């Protein structure tokens, strides 16, 4: 049976997302969007028996308060947002039956930063360019193109979820509050614009996540970059600053160097521009980015392309029915 979810309080930028997001329109400037922590998102869908492409909600830093019009099964994964269902503590990483008229209230994220809500049947919003994911900067997809607003109503497809299913402890991402993260990076594509001692400095230094970070980019604060000769002896079309390059495409996850400020380009990032990308964060480390908070400290751990692909397979192997008990 179909139902509605009333948005009592929207939370801080809660949006509809789907996996893997929007593909095929990148060359026109539309980024993939989709859930930032795809590991937690996929497990939420599996818990409630949804297809992988079913749309759910991404809650950031402070979650929403939602009222369900009808009986359904829901699951909440990712960051700990101290959710309650009609005042009772609501368990994470577990499918739960919700009765008509009940209210799920989330608080601030106390461990991690982003939580994912799946509802059996999946959220029903129109597909835009083949996806339901929200790209709010251009007002594309999701619920009317933007983050949820107080007083809106979200339609949900009919679905038959089973309550009481849990994600095995060792199949969940290890979201912790240590404030220190080891983030994998692959060297390139434009690492030859950085001097060898600059590469070493990047890998040996601590980088602080700045507050001005969001689903477009993660700004980092750290030591000065040291450029290779190539960065200053180049044609005028590459621009004046050593970090400038002739306009080129930006891989998702690339660490974009704007002057001296590195910005990790994430799900909603611009597709192209005129700055170099000396390193790239592989997809398997995105859940760590998604679950970290401003002022957290990153150290980067260099891996090969093949190692990064193996890590990705490792996570894919956990986003399966076998991870449920």
């Amino acid at each position, binding site marked *: 049976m179909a139902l509605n979810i009333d948005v009592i309080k929207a939370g801080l930028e809660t949006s509809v997302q789907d996996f893997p997001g929007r*593909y*095929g*329109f*990148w*060359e*026109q*400037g*539309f980024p993939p969007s989709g859930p930032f922590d795809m590991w937690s998102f996929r497990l939420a869908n599996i818990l409630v028996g949804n297809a992988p492409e079913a749309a759910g909600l991404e809650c950031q830093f402070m979650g929403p308060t939602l009222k369900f019009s009808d009986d359904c099964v829901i699951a909440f994964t990712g960051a700990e947002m101290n959710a309650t269902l009609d005042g009772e503590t609501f368990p994470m990483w577990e499918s739960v039956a919700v009765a008509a008229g009940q209210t799920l209230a989330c608080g601030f994220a106390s461990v991690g930063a982003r939580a994912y809500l799946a509802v059996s049947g999946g959220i029903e919003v129109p597909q*835009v*360019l083949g996806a339901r994911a929200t*790209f709010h900067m*251009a*007002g*594309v997809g999701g619920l009317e*193109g933007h983050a949820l607003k107080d007083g809106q109503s979200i339609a949900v497809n009919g679905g038959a979820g089973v309550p009481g299913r849990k994600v095995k402890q060792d199949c969940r991402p290890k979201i912790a509050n240590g404030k220190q993260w080891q983030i994998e990076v*692959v*060297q*390139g*594509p*434009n690492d030859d614009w950085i001097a060898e001692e600059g590469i070493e400095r990047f890998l040996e230094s601590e980088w602080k996540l700045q507050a001005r970070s969001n689903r477009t980019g993660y700004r980092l604060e750290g030591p000065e970059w040291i450029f290779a000769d190539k960065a200053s002896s*180049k*044609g005028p*079309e*590459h621009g004046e600053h050593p970090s400038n390059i*002739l*306009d*080129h*495409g*930006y*891989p*998702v*996850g*690339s660490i974009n160097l704007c002057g001296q400020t590195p910005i990790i380009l994430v799900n909603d990032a*611009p*597709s*192209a*521009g005129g700055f170099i*990308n000396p390193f*790239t*964060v*592989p*997809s*398997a480390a995105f859940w760590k980015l998604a679950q970290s908070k401003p002022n957290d400290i990153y150290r980067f751990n260099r891996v090969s*392309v*093949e190692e*990064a*692909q193996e*890590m*990705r*397979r490792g996570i*894919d192997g956990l986003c399966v029915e076998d991870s449920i008990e």
Partner: protein
Amino acid sequence: MIYDEPKFLPGGDRFIEMELGDELNFDLNFLVHSLSAKIREAEIAGLIELLPNMASIVISYDPDLISFADLKSEILSHYRNMGSLEDMELLSPIYYIPVLYCDHVTRACWEDYCAKITEKEYDSDILVKLNDLDGYAQLARIHSGTEYWVAALGFYPGLASLIALDPRCRLTAPKYNPPRTWTAKGTIGYGGSVTCVYPANTPGGYQMIGHTPVPVCDIEQSLPAFKQDLALLRPGDRVRFFPVGREEYDYIESRVTAGDYVHNVAHYAKFSIRAYHEWLGTLDMKERF
């Protein structure tokens, strides 16, 4: 230069940046889009999408279906089999965009900038002076006197970098400093040697020389041209601007508002680089429209 050996640079676990050269050069950009078309035709299993730009292509792929090494060698073999640049042809539709030059919309935007941010000379005056033109009429004549090549899209959804194909019509313009906090959707901008149509109300830095009522991006998908795509242009397409007066501008705007405006496009148009080079050889570069 165009490299003898293209570079295949890793971008994490699922992207490759293929660099074909390192300069701003029409032939190189044409090569980028011709190769992109070839790669798409080949339908390589595991290749997800392409992001062609000035001199490079970012390729996204599924590493469970194809390895970096196999994808590289497959793309390289298509590249080697492309034959000579001179023989290349590309299907390149031409989109016709009406422009009201020195219009009321961008004048209001400029006045607002002068009042709120800093005094600056009127944009079209800057272009006229810098490019040694007679006045606004010649600016419109030159800007609309050439086809433009969609070299790339990016920065913002639907925003295309347009390069004049007729070298006699290449203008230069400085950028706003500081940039504008807003620019009206449909503004015709000029910055460096690139012109553009603003796809939405966004900040911006290009000089504003005119305005079109015809959208190049439509999130609401209200016009027939946007039933499949939200953005009108793809890399390797062409644009031709044509000047209109206020009456025609208002008429087109009313059709857009009514939701029944049909974009004017020549889908059959091919681009032959040999014919283009031959034509370039006949031009007298001192001539101006």
